[in-house]
């Protein structure tokens, strides 16, 4: 494969992934509003387009044409840097997400993953940890007490749950004997088992950490609409305001759901019967069925997150950190202990 072809392929991958993140991220706002509305027996957006289908565009136009106000006491550099620090790391996680199996297009073997680095999972969690900078900077730069309290809460949550999520992810990593996201999925396919069946504790811990990291209910204490008027975004306006929920509620949920799918639900593999094999009702799609399975899994996870969000009330900040350090972290460590006995039994 020549260097030019490689460059073109990578450029295409970058464009596709960015389009998916930002396009789908914007449309997930509509999905969220519809799901939330129907849970509360409302119809949600109905006016712009058929059943509100053009609502995200209208929202985008509204946010973009709004006046760009900088608070007089804000630190201008950090205020704008915070947006970049929130958006970029969250998007970069998709660099290590494998969307499907290797495919042959125009005589090239293409892995549908931007960079198949051998430390993919660590990269994903590193970028996840970087997200705290966006929040902390926005809280600090806004020079507002609500923003600062919200940012501190979020920082506390992320620091607690970064530890938990990494220890939880150690289980699948030990079973797969690899840190590369692509190899973890391949290991699950070769061992003929999704790791959710071997790692149920770790899975639950990971889902909790996912909710906490993305600021979803029951861990949305940094938003706390009633007390903190949506926390660290309170001094932002226009599209700058729009980007924070977009990143936090949609891009991060998508990226962490993808990582969760890779770690526990076998990535692009079809329905699994543990240790027996895979059943693929979408066999007629050929090599493309993998992509569909990946999309289905991420969609189900996203809807589950929404469902939880619009059902549960929120924990207090002390309850959140208590759960993280006193319940989730011991559980994750216990899971690692069990995994040390299971891992050698698996062939792979």
């Amino acid at each position: 494969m020549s260097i030019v072809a490689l460059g073109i392929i990578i450029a295409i991958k970058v464009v596709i992934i960015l389009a998916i993140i930002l396009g789908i991220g914007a449309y997930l706002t509509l999905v969220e509003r519809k799901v939330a509305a129907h849970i509360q027996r409302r119809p949600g957006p109905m006016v712009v387009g058929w059943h509100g289908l053009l609502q995200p565009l209208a929202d985008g136009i509204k946010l973009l044409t709004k006046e760009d106000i900088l608070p007089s006491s804000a630190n201008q550099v950090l205020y704008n840097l915070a947006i970049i620090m929130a958006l970029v790391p969250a998007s970069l996680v998709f660099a290590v997400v494998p969307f499907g199996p290797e495919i042959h297009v125009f005589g090239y073997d293409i892995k549908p993953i931007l960079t198949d680095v051998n430390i993919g999972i660590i990269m994903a969690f590193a970028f996840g940890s970087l997200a705290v900078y966006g929040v902390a900077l926005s809280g600090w730069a806004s020079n507002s007490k609500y923003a600062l309290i919200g940012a501190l809460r979020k920082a506390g949550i992320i620091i607690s749950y970064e530890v938990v999520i990494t220890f939880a992810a150690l289980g699948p990593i030990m079973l797969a004997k690899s840190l590369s996201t692509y190899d973890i999925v391949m290991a699950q396919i070769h061992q003929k088992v999704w790791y959710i069946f071997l790692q149920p504790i770790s899975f639950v811990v990971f889902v909790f950490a996912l909710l906490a990291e993305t600021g979803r209910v029951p861990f949305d204490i940094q938003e706390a609409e009633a007390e903190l008027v949506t926390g660290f975004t309170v001094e932002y306006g226009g599209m700058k305001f729009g980007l924070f929920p977009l990143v936090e509620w949609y891009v991060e949920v998508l990226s962490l759901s993808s990582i969760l799918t890779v770690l526990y639900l076998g990535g692009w593999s079809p329905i699994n019967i543990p240790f027996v094999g895979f059943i693929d009702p979408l066999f007629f799609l050929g090599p493309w069925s993998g992509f569909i399975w990946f999309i289905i899994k991420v969609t189900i996870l996203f809807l589950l997150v929404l469902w939880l969000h619009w059902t549960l009330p929120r924990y207090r900040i002390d309850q959140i950190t208590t759960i993280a350090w006193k319940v989730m972290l011991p559980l994750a460590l216990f899971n690692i202990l069990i995994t040390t006995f299971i891992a050698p039994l698996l062939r792979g």
Partner: protein
Amino acid sequence: MIKKVFEKPLNFLETILFLDFIKGMSITIKQAFTKTITTHYPYEKLTPPKRFRGFFGHKTVNGLEPQPAFDEWVERMKIEPRPGQSRCVVCYLCKKACPVPDLFEIDGKKLENGKKVVSVFNMNLMLCTFCGLCVDACPVDCLFQSDIHETASFSRKDAILNLEKLEAIGKSWQDRREHEPDRIWIDDDARQALWRENKLNLKKVDNA
């Protein structure tokens, strides 16, 4: 004595199976697949009950005035009752009853035959709290509150009701709802029908 009430704590099995989560989520998923109960406001509107305290209006002379109060007041204030025009007898009782009397601007004019009619009746609704004390004070059932609740306007001028507007509101009210029996919200059949469209049945209240 303060009685302390705590929720029943979950046992161990319920905790690790997230039973409380599942209970709540089963409720929300059930609600998510039922029909919505909203009114699509600018396109569909609910009719307020007859006793709704909305915009003010002047009922017109149409033969349904409260008797003998109307004839007494007409005689006392030397008013010329004109059919199809406001019943107002320029007694200023509404202004007296109002917590913000400045919002009323009332004046009468003398006709050639020596009798009076109302000539100016302005209400500045920017100051109004829609408390209804003026309506209670009106001795001839002239001033009343209609079911007009969309009070938003583009200028402050529109918030001032003059005699023409008040009479227009009164006439339309008399055409539309004068003959409805005076009911409270919950046993208003017209309203109940609207709720029934949305598949929600409110309990009937026994007023006896």
